[in-house]
């Protein structure tokens, strides 16, 4: 390309490389000591998480601001079509999480990309986490013998009011990103690429609140939610609490996956707002303003479940954090929670429909989530919440290289 202008060259590189260059320019400016008064970069910084790895992104990844959970039923006619769907899903997720210029269909078809993120797709902190439900391992695709050992249909727990139209699914996509348009874009592109093989069953969009004013973000009952989460940087701990391993009854292919629990929990916020903060604090066992346990001063203080010899513990027996706590069960019922708030309009009675997309990653559903959930039966909080949807899923192991694809181990 002789005589090309510098401008032309940049135009020709309107790709991931150019986006990355713009994104990298921002911190570079600051590093070079050109203070905050220097020209503000026009492009926002762009976070890209690696698509490939031993585990999928979207599990240990810091919780993004925006999310969508979509459960699908598989309509693929046979095993070959199901494999093709997983390959397409891999290809789409890889491109969307990496960012770049979408493929050009020229004059042969409609555009490959819907264009809502502009001509070059930013990564924007996107993660697409693919999980499978127990129903995928029925007779349709000959996968019965490959079912992760602990994967079953989510049972109804005490205090649940499950609407099965809002539960389960063959495949779950958990999409997270720094902005809503990126989530919508990813979902649209993936659904378009898999039309004949996947039909949506239920969908719930969520968001994470910023720290108010500091510490763990709050749920829509006003309480900090996730304070006691295990540290995701502790690899040994993650290996014990999050990642599944082959052996002991589990098929070999589950190595590096995780049991993915999603619970759609409506919060009856009108009723909740008519409850005094003193009572709310007792229901949770924490101070609403600071998030500190009622026996502490700071959010991260360890709760004391003792009664100080008085016979009446400060944190009541039916308080949420006491029931959920791991203290009575050193065997490891801790799990990694990664929840989002949801807010989706009003119900037929004019009450606000908002709540929590409770999300947890577990090595063992029974040992962790189900054990804790049973301990929560009858807790004081049940009067103010309504768990009605979600399901048990299994987050597939990561994709190990450019030739690998999501779910390959299932079919091997």
């Amino acid at each position, binding site marked *: 390309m002789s005589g090309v202008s510098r401008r032309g060259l940049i135009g020709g590189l309107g790709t991931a490389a150019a986006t990355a260059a713009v994104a990298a320019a921002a911190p570079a400016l600051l590093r070079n000591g050109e203070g905050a008064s220097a020209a503000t970069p026009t492009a926002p910084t762009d976070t890209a998480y690696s698509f490939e790895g031993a585990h999928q992104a979207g599990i240990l990844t810091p919780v993004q601001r925006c999310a969508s959970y979509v459960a699908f*039923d598989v*309509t693929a006619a046979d095993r070959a079509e199901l494999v093709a769907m997983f390959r397409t899903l891999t290809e789409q997720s890889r491109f969307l999480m990496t960012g770049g210029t979408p493929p*050009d*269909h*020229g*004059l042969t078809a*409609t555009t490959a990309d819907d264009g809502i993120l502009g001509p070059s797709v930013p990564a924007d902190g996107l993660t697409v986490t693919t999980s499978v439900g127990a129903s995928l391992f029925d007779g349709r695709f000959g996968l019965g013998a490959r079912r992760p050992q602990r994967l079953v249909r989510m049972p109804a727990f005490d205090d649940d009011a499950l609407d099965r139209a809002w539960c389960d699914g063959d495949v779950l996509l958990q999409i997270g990103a720094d902005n809503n348009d990126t989530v919508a874009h990813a979902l649209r592109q993936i659904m378009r690429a898999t*039309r*004949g093989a996947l039909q949506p069953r239920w969908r719930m969009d969520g968001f994470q609140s910023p720290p108010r004013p500091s510490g763990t973000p709050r749920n829509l009952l006003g309480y900090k939610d996730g304070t006691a989460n295990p540290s995701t940087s502790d690899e040994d701990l993650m290996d014990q609490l999050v990642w599944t391993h082959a052996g002991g009854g589990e098929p070999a292919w589950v190595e590096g996956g995780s049991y993915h629990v999603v619970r759609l929990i409506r919060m009856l916020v009108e009723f909740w707002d008519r409850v005094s903060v003193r009572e709310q604090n007792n229901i949770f066992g924490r101070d609403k303003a600071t998030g500190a346990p009622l026996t502490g001063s700071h959010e991260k203080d360890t709760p004391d479940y003792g009664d100080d010899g008085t016979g009446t513990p400060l944190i009541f027996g039916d308080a949420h954090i006491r029931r959920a706590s791991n203290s009575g069960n050193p065997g490891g019922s801790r799990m990694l929670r990664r929840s989002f708030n949801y807010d989706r309009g009003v119900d037929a009675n004019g009450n606000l429909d908002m709540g929590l997309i409770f999300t947890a990653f577990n090595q063992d559903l029974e040992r962790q989530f189900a054990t804790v959930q049973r301990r929560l039966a009858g807790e004081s909080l049940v009067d103010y919440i309504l768990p009605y949807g979600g399901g048990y899923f299994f987050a597939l192991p990561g994709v190990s290289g450019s030739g690998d694809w999501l779910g390959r181990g299932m079919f091997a």
Partner: protein
Amino acid sequence: MGRAGAQAGRLGTALALVAALGLALRLSVPTPHAVADAPHGDTSIPGTPVQVSQEACGSGWSGGAAGPVTLALWNASGRNAEAALENASTHEYLLYAENLGADVTRSVTVTLGPGSYRLLCFVDDETGVAGPAQQVTGSYAGALTPAVLPVSTTDLIEPLLAYQRWISGRLTILQNKLARFEKRLHRGDWERAKRSWLATHRAWIVLGAAYDTFGDVGDAIDGRPTAGVDPATDRSLTGFHKIEALLWAQGRPTRHRMRAVILPAVRTMAASVTRIQQGWGTTFQVAPIDMGLRTHEILEDGLRWDLTGRTDAGSHTTLAALDAEVTGTRAVLSFLRPLLQPRDRDLAATDAWLHRFKADVDRYHRAKHVWAPLQDLGTGQLERLHADLDQTLEYLSEIAVLTDPEKVYQ
């Protein structure tokens, strides 16, 4: 679906067809231009500046290495213009820039493999000219922009005329079915009249009148029920769905009602069909671009209005309607097939999905005029229908792009 703009565009294309039929397009061979003055335009637009004009078509670009190429097309002609980038050996197009206003600079990007390419310029009221062929050399590991043979308005004339003749024949069949329908109503034969309604409606649907070819007359024949309004009493509703609501209303209609209320509605509809027959090819005609659009729009309507139950005014024959829509789609497709065969790499897949969707619909075809009500289908069955139709539409939508008429250099 906001197609109002497209409607206006199609009218324009229809006029263009008339022009194409009337004029023998004479395209000149471009004189080798010695343009020393550098092409420019708006220099803030990214890309290698390339001129679109009668005198210096393509000047500014001289080929280069294989890979992504961004051109800043500058319309220097002083008039509206269009431009195509063509593979000079195969005459396939890689990009087509439409509606380039005078002095507009537009950035376009293509990814080129090694070969010989040239820009074609089509300035309004001028014969098309070709710029000099430029060489692209080396290789590129990434995906290339696919090239495809253009479809000209002239290419579409034969399929269009054949389709219009086919429609003429189908209008006669429709009239015959309407006449039988009238007789059955006149006799007060309710059961047979209902079967006639379905057969007549299906005969109408295969015409593929999805997108307003018949204008207001089409709405009078097959207007859709308004959500939340009883179609039997909705005074603004006429045609098939009004008659459907009357025929399938609770209980058997009296012979008097059939003759005094329903029969006149059918006669009015028959008169509308006669108006279409009389004006076919003159008042009512299919524009060249419509053929490609129809191939997905007939079933887009099926997805939007039928599969959602919105068009069911009581007969519960939605699945029969979808089946007829497949027939109508296949008819359009059959006339375009010679153009698609060398162009549509997904043609076999398109046919396969259309077949799969029809087989899926026909699973609920119980007897000659008997189809399962959509309401009786379970979630899994509906999901399968949706999946098959959704995927079919993705493939069908390519045809509208492939057959969107473009100017060609001859």
